[in-house]
């Protein structure tokens, strides 16, 4: 919040205009939108959520829901912390036709029909009524409107910072804490949500010692302190990881120690019509006076139980406002104000007026006799709610302490501290002392051998007498709430929840504070309980006959302040990751149709599947497979590791050989497949599929982490190598032109792995053939990828070589019955059923991942099988067509294609094992019709593998 507010103390006023609901409003520079509206006499700025009651400024600190408007298209903006800007367009929300005159106010009159939770008890009989009602509800629900002219085009950014000590809050305690820590020699980051440091002293000048400015300048100029202003810490996550919003920027801050010096805010009183425009918190009035330079025409009544009420009264009077009376809850207050009428031991019972305060009814705490005072403003200074949600978020334990009437830390989270008013120390001198203490403690904790030292319980720091915050003596029964049976005593302004609603809900059985919240919706609105939680808990406690401490609190959840999705997303929406292979430019220049494969872009087809297919089967083809995951493993225990990871054997893999392998999880389910080449005694080169590159990397690391004694070093080299597959009967002749190495069948047979030079570049060459032809998978350093690619194509020109894409590759491999993990297999497929029983070596002595499950699966026999089939009709069904047996689901097709080799439509399908013998007929549902297909055991192309091994 406060993104655009700057410290205006020295600026010369410039006036300009903005628009509010179509009207021109003048503002002085440095004023908030709310301040300008106040000056302009616009006191109704919003309508309430449920009853559409008029609402005006209440907190002036971005905490209550009363001033939520749409600003320049952004819905739900709190205009009390939004600087007014020339030409700005501000619109009220949730009112029809206008905020001044809202027809939906009728709901306020109908409140009897809408008691707490009424919607759970109505509108569902008969059944068809609910959808009808729901349409109506959805028409009136919600606050701001989605602005469709705004895209994700704002300028957002993110910053990562590190600090020894993070101090949250730039009030007196925070300033002293920052200085004390920095003076002790550690780095400090001070984060404050206001445009200038000083906390509430900024708008309570009487309290500010003359040294405040000096203190601020010492902090600002301290070389070890980094001040981040106008920035809100919205979350305190695990291990002191702070999320901070500063305008359009999100800062992630890692802090070794955190000091929460977050202070407190004023809470409102609960009385009849306490939501009328003109009812305001004292701190709000002070902010308007001192920061927004506003005036308060007409008379003010002040209700208070503390010194702040008197200060506010004095300041208002100094600014020309007549103080009609001070209503003091206490019988013997130490403060007084000369010439002002006082009612001691009194409180406010109700406010009157329909669109603005016209007067208030007051009475002694017992409730009578009542008397009426006429006034235009009711200013309330009745105590504080500590801003402790970050403490709760970080796992501190707090307990309600009656003597200070607030929750106090009884156990801090590791490496966390708190200081000042949040600890119940409201007096400036005490807050300063507490800040110094916390600053020193944090610095000391950093230097101690165990960094996780944290603050002692705040209770212990409270030997210093506490006052100023709240009444010292007796605590009257729940003076958050005026003694009257009136109905419209609002506890939760966001949701229009009244005291009566809360009591009714408890009577219905929702007596737990959490269930109460969910049922009555108290504290579930935009302010997330900032204004109402204290009163709600007090009422709940009273009504249940429990203490406040027993009643507990609802869980504090981030963000502390509402946080725009754009800020969270940063620029990631606009710059989504796109991965390109080293040969990408070449593909684009040569007309490849590119497609997405995860984050990668891959050529789907260059010319046509038929042409590319023919090139591979008859001559030579080249495909870019740089997207494969590539992992290098080195060390004495790699064999042991591979034996453990893979179901098949690797101990007997000779140097210079490559082997196919499938990786299974503990349940024997196929995770991935790939090749494992042994390039040296202790050196292996592995590939994974494109989609699983990251997952397999983590899978390996996960298992290795638990085996630190094994000598296995893993390097992910996926991005370091470009890779391509040269395949086809002429491929040996092509490659021969680019190397001195002996490529003969004897020197480099099928499944050989060698490191040779190709086109002058060191390469790992694997003789494998996914597409079923004589083939070479060539891995070269990424920077030479395009060079080697072009060299091979050039060398192959005389043989009419062609690049081929994924579509041709898919057909070629289908003819060989090779499955693709994740396409032809799913989360239930194991290698036994996926037609790879030979790959599972249950006789391996040592355990391997999935061994037990696979053994059991073998024992019980397969239920389903992955088989190849050929369709009896010349049609190509959709992928995912179903295989039916007797009208029931039998299985599904996972791959399909038109095979020149088979002379028809072929595919892979999961079917019941009972139908999986060669020649069995299965039935596939195609456009509502059943078509026969025949199970085919052997590959459709080169079943004996002669070509592959040639």
């Amino acid at each position: 919040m406060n993104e655009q507010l700057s410290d205006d103390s020295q600026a010369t006023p410039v006036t300009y205009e903005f628009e509010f609901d179509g009207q021109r409003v003048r503002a002085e520079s440095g004023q908030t939108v709310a301040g300008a509206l106040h000056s302009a006499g616009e006191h109704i700025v919003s309508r309430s959520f449920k009853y559409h009651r008029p609402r005006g400024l209440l907190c002036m600190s971005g905490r209550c829901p009363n001033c939520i408007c749409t600003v320049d298209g952004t819905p739900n903006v709190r205009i009390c912390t939004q600087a007014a800007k020339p030409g700005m367009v501000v619109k009220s929300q949730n009112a029809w036709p206008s905020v001044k005159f809202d027809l939906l106010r009728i709901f306020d009159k109908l409140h009897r029909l809408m008691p707490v939770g009424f919607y759970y008890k109505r509108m569902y009989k008969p059944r068809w009524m609910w959808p009808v009602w729901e349409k109506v509800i959805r028409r009136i629900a919600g606050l701001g409107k989605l602005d469709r002219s705004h895209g994700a085009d704002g300028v957002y950014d993110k910053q990562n910072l590190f600090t020894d000590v993070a101090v949250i809050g730039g009030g007196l305690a925070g300033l002293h804490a920052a200085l004390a820590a920095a003076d002790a020699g550690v780095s400090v980051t001070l984060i404050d949500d206001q445009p200038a440091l000083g906390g509430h002293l900024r708008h309570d000048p009487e309290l500010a010692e003359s040294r405040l400015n000096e203190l601020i300048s010492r902090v600002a100029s301290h070389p070890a302190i980094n001040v981040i202003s106008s920035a809100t810490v919205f979350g305190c996550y695990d291990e002191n990881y702070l999320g901070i919003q500063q305008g359009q920027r999100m800062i992630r801050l890692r802090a070794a120690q955190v000091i929460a010096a977050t202070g407190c805010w004023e809470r409102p009183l609960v009385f009849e019509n306490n939501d009328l425009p003109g009812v305001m918190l004292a701190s709000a009035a002070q902010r308007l006076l001192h920061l927004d330079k506003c005036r308060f025409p007409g008379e003010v009544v002040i209700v208070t139980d503390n010194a702040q009420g008197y200060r506010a009264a004095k300041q208002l009077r100094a600014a020309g406002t007549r103080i009609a009376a001070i209503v003091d809850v206490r019988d013997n207050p130490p403060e007084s104000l000369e010439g002002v009428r006082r009612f001691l031991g009194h409180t406010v019972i109700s406010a009157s007026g329909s669109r603005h305060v016209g007067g208030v009814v007051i009475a002694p705490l017992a409730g009578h006799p009542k008397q009426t005072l006429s006034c235009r403003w009711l200013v309330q200074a009745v105590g504080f709610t500590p801003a402790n949600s970050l403490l709760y978020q970080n796992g501190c334990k707090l307990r309600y302490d009656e003597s200070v009437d607030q929750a106090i830390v009884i156990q801090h989270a590791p490496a966390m501290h708190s200081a000042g008013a949040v600890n119940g120390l409201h007096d400036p001198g005490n807050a300063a002392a507490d800040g110094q203490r916390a600053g020193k403690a944090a610095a000391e904790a950093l230097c101690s051998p165990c960094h996780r030292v944290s603050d002692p319980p705040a209770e212990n720091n409270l030997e210093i007498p506490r006052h100023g915050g709240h009444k010292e003596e007796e605590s009257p029964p729940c003076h958050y709430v005026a003694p009257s049976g009136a109905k419209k005593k609002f506890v939760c302004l966001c949701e229009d929840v009244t005291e009566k609603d809360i009591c009714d809900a408890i009577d219905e059985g929702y007596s737990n504070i959490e269930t109460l919240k969910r049922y009555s919706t108290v504290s579930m609105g935009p302010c997330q309980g900032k204004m109402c939680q204290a009163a709600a808990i007090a009422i709940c406690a009273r009504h249940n006959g429990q203490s406040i401490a027993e009643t507990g609190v609802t869980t504090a959840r981030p963000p502390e302040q509402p946080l725009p999705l754009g800020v969270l997303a940063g620029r990631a929406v606009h710059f989504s990751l796109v991965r390109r292979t080293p040969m990408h430019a070449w593909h684009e220049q040569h007309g490849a149709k590119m497609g997405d494969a995860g984050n990668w872009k891959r050529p789907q087809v260059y010319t046509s599947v038929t042409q590319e297919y023919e090139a591979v089967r008859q001559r030579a083809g080249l495909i870019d497979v740089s997207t494969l995951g590539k992992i290098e493993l080195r060390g004495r225990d790699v064999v042991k590791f591979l034996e453990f990871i893979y179901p098949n054997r690797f101990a007997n893999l000779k140097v210079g050989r490559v082997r196919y392998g499938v990786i299974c999880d503990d349940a024997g389910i196929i995770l991935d497949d790939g090749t494992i080449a042994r390039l040296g005694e202790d050196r292996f080169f592995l590939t994974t599929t494109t989609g699983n590159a990251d997952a397999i990397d983590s899978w390996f690391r996960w298992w290795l982490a638990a085996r630190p004694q094994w000598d296995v070093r893993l390097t992910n080299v996926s991005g370091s190598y470009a890779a391509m597959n040269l395949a086809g009967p002429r491929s040996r002749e092509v490659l021969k032109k680019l190397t001195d190495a002996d490529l003969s069948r004897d020197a480099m047979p099928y499944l050989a792995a060698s490191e040779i030079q190709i086109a002058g570049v060191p390469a790992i060459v694997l003789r494998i053939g996914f597409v079923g032809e004589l083939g070479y998978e060539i891995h070269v350093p990424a920077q030479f990828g395009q060079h080697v690619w072009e060299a091979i194509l050039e060398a192959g020109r005389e043989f009419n070589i062609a690049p081929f894409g994924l579509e041709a590759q898919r057909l070629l491999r289908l003819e060989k019955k090779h499955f693709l993990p994740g396409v032809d297999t799913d989360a239930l497929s194991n290698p036994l059923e996926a037609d790879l029983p030979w790959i599972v070596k249950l006789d391996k002595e040592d355990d391997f991942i999935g061994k037990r499950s696979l053994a059991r699966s073998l024992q019980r026999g397969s239920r389903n099988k992955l088989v190849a089939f050929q369709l009896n009709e010349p049609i190509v069904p959709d992928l995912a067509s179903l295989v039916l047996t007797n009208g029931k689901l039998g299985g599904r097709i996972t791959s399909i294609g038109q095979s020149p080799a088979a002379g028809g439509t072929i595919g892979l399908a999961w079917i019941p094992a009972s139908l999986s013998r060669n020649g069995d007929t299965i039935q596939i549902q195609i456009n509502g019709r059943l078509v026969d297909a025949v199970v085919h055991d052997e590959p459709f192309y080169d079943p004996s593998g002669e070509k592959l091994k040639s």
Partner: protein
Amino acid sequence: MVSQRMWREHELKDQYDVVIIGGGVHGLATAYYLTKLGVKNIAVLEAKYIGFGGSGRNTAIVRSNYRTPEGIAFYDLSVKLYEQLAADLDFNVMFSQHGHLTLAHNERGVTGLTERANTNQLMGVNSRIIFPQEIQQIVPDLNVFGHSRFPIQAALYHPPGGIIRHDAVVWAYARGVDRGGGHVHQKTEVTAIEVQNGQVEAVDTNRGRIKTKMVLNATAGYAGLISRMVGLEIPIETHPLQAAVTEPLKPFLNSVIVSSTLHVYVSQTDRGELVLGAEVDDHASYSLRGTLAFLEGAAIHLLELFPHLANVKILRQWAGLCDMTPDYSPIMGGTPDVKGFYMTVGWGTYGFKAGPASGYLMAELLASGKTPKRLEPFALTRFYDDCLVGEKAAASVSH
């Protein structure tokens, strides 16, 4: 309107015929249907307050467009029970069946959804594949044709799917139990279960010991811990699942939108809040603290789908615990190892929608001792027999 108490507080008796551990939708629904079957000397024991667990934290998506015939049939029963639930429990649970769309952004996604549509139709569930034009018609604000890294290619459209007021379901079931004569004990934590000669004999709680021959474990995220009390290891790993909600906006989104490719889903409640979520956290944990990484990821992906939401604000985030099974299907039934110990667990990220069906069938099992046919595929023994009900593809991001 005269306010009536939803549920009462009772003394803990020293004997119940059935003790149900966990005051979430599953425990309460089972108890409710038990009372309907005339089994009334029962107690639901809840360590905190009813709805403390997943049942108070979920994003309330109800649908039946699953993948396996077993799953589809089961969840379809639940949707049908939910349709009647407001009338049955005399409480508006606000089931809004505005439709559910699962988006596909690549060929593999389209294939997976087509397969589901085909299987759903075979099982009589209203579900079909639709393409960009129609998607845009149903969700005018969705970024279907604008700039996008992974353009939407198709969607699985499931008109009966939607969202429900989850708390209302929990409360209404609790009231049903109370009116039916059963006890709901909040703040009552089970600390041990006594087993003698392979038979459950009693449970210990922070409020005292209760004799019982029949215990139902309905504790979702804590299911592994409870099972261990009788010495039973079940294939469940607990992972946090996170969600977040925005400030209320005038309703513009009626359907539930899910994208597995973008790891995000979103719906808009009748209050106008957008509810968003993703998949479970990678690592097993019992932590209920949310992470910043979740919020960032969800925001990035949501803005791909709805770029206009950039200046809409997140109000709060939270996490719940999910009891994940290897096949993303639940475990319902007893165990041959411990007589009298039953479970309805493994509800993972998707169990809220199953409350009525599982409660209904589990009650039948507990009351009669016979396993209803529709529960058979979900027995614990399927993990020994290797007979899994694979729903991962249909349940990892759509809950």
